[in-house]
């Protein structure tokens, strides 16, 4: 009797489960493509979950990105390293191109000077060394005795007169720049008025030059151009040097002193032209750069 009741209960449960499964399967079949009129329930549930879901999604996105970042770190790092390498390579390439451009511009200007001064025989040279100490203002170029270069030859670059050859080997030449106080004196004149003076290097190391021995009544002004006079050691005339920056009276009041700012940037010289000789022509020589008629008259 008791066994029967247990069996009946067990059978009933099995039947219930079977019926439940059948109902569920039917619902699954129906809702596989269409909803079972449960849309409001679903939408209510989703509506209820929405705020939490939004917060969770925002948080999750951050966490996921962080985790992905950790996972991708190696890859990103490699990519970054590779890109850095590429950028470095391109930067080098770019700076090389810029260097070529600067060199090209400089060489063009040198060529222009040579074309304008057909009476000057010049040898172009590239700077291959600079003085390693600040107090020596010399440069070394890649042309020497074999190119006909000798001591005391004047040197110009695209901006003007920059110095003279002080030491020569077979294949190199050392040029002492105008700014070096040990360069010595050089006789100059102002282009505008033709007043003579003596130019010296500046011991203050500011890259400027001093023009001394100017009479107190000399008509010179700031902004006047200073060129070589062709007297003294340097026999070449009209080589542009710079402009008068300021004028001061000397302590005795008899003479003036002018500070000349050179045209050339002595910290950035890459190519130079060494003037070997000046050919004497029957006609009037052409100056290095355009000079005004007044200056021409003084010569």
């Amino acid at each position, binding site marked *: 009797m008791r066994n029967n009741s247990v069996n009946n209960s067990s059978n009933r449960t099995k039947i219930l489960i079977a019926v439940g499964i059948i109902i*569920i399967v039917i619902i699954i079949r129906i809702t596989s493509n269409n909803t079972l009129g449960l849309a409001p329930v679903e939408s209510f549930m989703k509506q209820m979950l929405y705020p939490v879901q939004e917060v969770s999604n925002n948080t999750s*996105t951050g966490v996921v990105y962080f*985790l992905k970042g950790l996972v991708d770190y190696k890859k990103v790092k490699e990519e970054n390293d590779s890109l850095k390498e590429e950028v470095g390579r391109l930067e080098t390439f770019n700076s090389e191109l810029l260097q070529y451009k600067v060199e090209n511009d400089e060489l063009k200007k040198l060529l222009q000077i040579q074309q304008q001064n057909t009476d000057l025989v010049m040898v172009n040279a590239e700077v291959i060394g600079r003085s390693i100490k600040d107090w020596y203002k010399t440069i070394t170029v890649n042309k020497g005795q074999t190119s006909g270069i000798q001591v005391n030859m004047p040197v110009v670059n695209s901006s003007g007169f920059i110095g003279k050859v002080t030491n020569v080997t077979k294949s190199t030449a050392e040029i002492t720049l105008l700014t070096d106080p040990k360069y010595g004196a050089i006789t100059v004149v102002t282009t505008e008025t033709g007043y003579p003076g003596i130019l010296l290097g500046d011991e203050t190391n500011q890259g400027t030059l001093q023009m001394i021995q100017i009479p107190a009544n000399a008509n010179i002004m700031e902004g006047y151009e200073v060129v070589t006079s062709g007297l003294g050691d340097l026999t070449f005339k009209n080589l542009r040097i710079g402009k008068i920056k300021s004028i001061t009276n000397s302590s005795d009041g008899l003479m003036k002193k002018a500070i000349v700012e050179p045209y050339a940037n002595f910290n950035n010289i890459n190519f130079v032209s060494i003037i070997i000789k000046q050919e004497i022509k029957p006609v009037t020589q052409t100056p290095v750069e355009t000079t005004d008629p007044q200056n021409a008259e003084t010569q």
Partner: protein
Amino acid sequence: MKTIYYILYTLLICLAIIIEATFFSNIKLFGGMADLVLVILISLTFFLKREDLLLAFIIAGVLMDLYIGQMIGSHILAFGIIILLINRYSKRMIRENIIIALLIIFLSSIIYYLVMGVLLLFVGKGYYVNLIFIKNALFSSIYNLLLGLIIYPLTYLIFHRINKEIQ
């Protein structure tokens, strides 16, 4: 089980669904997705009584089905089959042995995908059941196993504390 526990359980499943939809859906293991609700449910199977378990899988199944909105009842059925199988043998298992628990989580996940695959074939969506489905099922099972490493010990600790409080 007290009513408050059912409410808490319902909220927990809702939270699990949300986390599954927002967090784990973004972190896949070779295409396999984690089934947080399934892992929670299987972990609970070891600690709940049969009557409570019945309600637990129905709540989880209904919520999952309502959230997905398609093939309503599929999760109730799949969870039901899994719970039935586990509950049949769980009394012989040692709860403290995490390896057994993890193995069950892995096998349950396989069964879950098996049931879902059959149901998909039944409703005429057999095109979903292909090699990719199998691969994803396998990786999802592994993923669930890894999740189980965290969820199962946590469940164990929670129930251990609850039992202590009751005593």
